[in-house]
């Protein structure tokens, strides 16, 4: 029997790794992947809770999260591709024409 907090801690660690990726990677795609990792970690937590609470609600929520993630990916990748066309780079550090 695995206590639910083990899963939650695992998800928190994964989530933190995702956060770290967003914060310090420069590659827009990798950043985006890190965000997916964050969502994934959250999903893990939900499913774990769902399992511990013997509730289906969590699983359904995860289902919607996955769907939304897909929608986000569509838009996000389109944006990245588009910006690559004009900048010839997906380094987010290049995208600082506005600041201050």
């Amino acid at each position, binding site marked *: 029997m695995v206590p*639910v907090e083990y899963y*939650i801690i695992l*998800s928190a660690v994964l*989530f933190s790794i*995702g*956060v770290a990726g*967003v914060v310090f990677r420069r590659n*827009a795609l990798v*950043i*985006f992947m890190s*965000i997916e990792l*964050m*969502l994934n*970690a*959250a*999903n893990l*937590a*939900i499913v*774990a*809770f*769902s399992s*511990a*609470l013997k*509730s289906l*609600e*969590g699983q*359904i*929520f995860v289902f*919607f*999260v996955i769907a*939304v993630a897909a*929608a*986000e990916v569509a*838009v*996000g990748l389109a*944006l*990245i591709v*588009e*910006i690559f*066309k*004009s*900048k010839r780079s997906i380094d*987010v550090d290049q*995208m*600082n*024409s*506005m*600041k*201050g």
Partner: protein
Amino acid sequence: MTLTPQDYQVLTPYILLTVWACILLLLDLFIPKNRKGITALLSALGLATTLGFTLSQIGSEETGFFGMVVLDGFSTFVNALLLVSGLLGVALAYGYIRRTGIERGEYYTLLLFSVTGMMLMAQAADLIIVFLALELLSIPLYVLAAFARPRTESEEAGLKYFLLGAFSTGFVVYGIALVFGAAQSTNLAAIVGYASTSSPSLLLTIGAALILVGFGFKVAAVPFHMWTPDVYQGAPTAVTAFMSSGAKIAGFAALLRVFATAFPSIAVDMTDVLWGLAALTMIVGNLIAIAQTDIKRLLAYSSIAHAGYILMAFVPYGDASVRADSVAAGLFYLVAYAVTNFGAWGVVIALEKAEGKGLAIADYAGLSKKYPALAAAMTVFMLSLIGLPPTIGLVGKFYLFRAVIAGGFTGLAIIGVLTSLISAYYYLRVVVVMYMRDGEPTIERETWLGLTTGAMAVVTVVVSLVPQYLFAWASEAVLKLF
């Protein structure tokens, strides 16, 4: 388990607008490229119709779709405000997107979809719906921000908004996960039911805090605000105008709905956090605004600062004796802010030139001589943003600070007024330039733009003289919320 007409009635405006948007998406294909004005008109028609339905719902109280959504005074108030914002967004965009060469029918469709997301957010009674609505309002905005591609700034704005938005969504989802873990449900009513039977759990608090991060991001509260100036600057101005009001209204509506309905039990902790956020937002927003030379960035920081003011209204949400008044004050201020904000952006749009020219504050020099009415309108908006008579901004601040003081947060109120003072400095600069500098500005004369701006100026002044009806509505709206 079947759906009844009541269920649909709860969501009539949303469904109406969604269906209309889908139809418009198709219709647009048949509208010739040079007559996209028709799309604009049609979208406005849709918004107006929906607004009519929404207004007819005043006084209705329903729950629908198995507790997923509610219809109450609050949602009606917010929906009406959102629909008006949508209408104004269309009116401001009409000439603008044509002139800047980005006229596409999808602009309006996306705007409609975004409004549907916002409305759903106001009606959500389940965290799942909150999450979905958040995405539904955001994704069109990501696209709209980048709508002026391949202009670098626009694309950058889109990407920044998207990456950071998705980042913050990650926190929201994790927050929902924790709340679910703590309260065994994502339904707001169920959560509050759980919280009332057991002692408040820290897990719930942390989950709520993470959800707060997501809302904080949407409403541009410090420290989740940093996307705001860049996105506002880079996005097409008409989009910025819509986004700065609409997204903020929706964000606050959801924040209020979620916190007031689900989390009163952890109010003690949350109040501290909200206090800090509000104070920080007012301070940082106003301070950085002073340094701006670009009117769009200036207004962006201004919108951050105002997020802080509105946040103040939510600080005492757990205190039963004052929260109704306080939240009503927040709603009123949202209206004041939206009206003023649209007006100010209208002026900005009028002065904007191709390629992002005409956006420096210095470009406003001499406006009062050449276009006195426009300058006067801008002055009214600036005064309203400062909170000076005779504008709705003053009445709003009065209402707001009163609620805050009544809640016992005098310190916060002091920060609020002091930062208002700071804000006077940068708003006045705009006035200084318009009235006390010489220059030869040119403006775009567009009927809808002019009408919108003028109407907003009139509303700003007139409502300040007879604010009681709006007051009454706002306080009515929150009565059944708690």
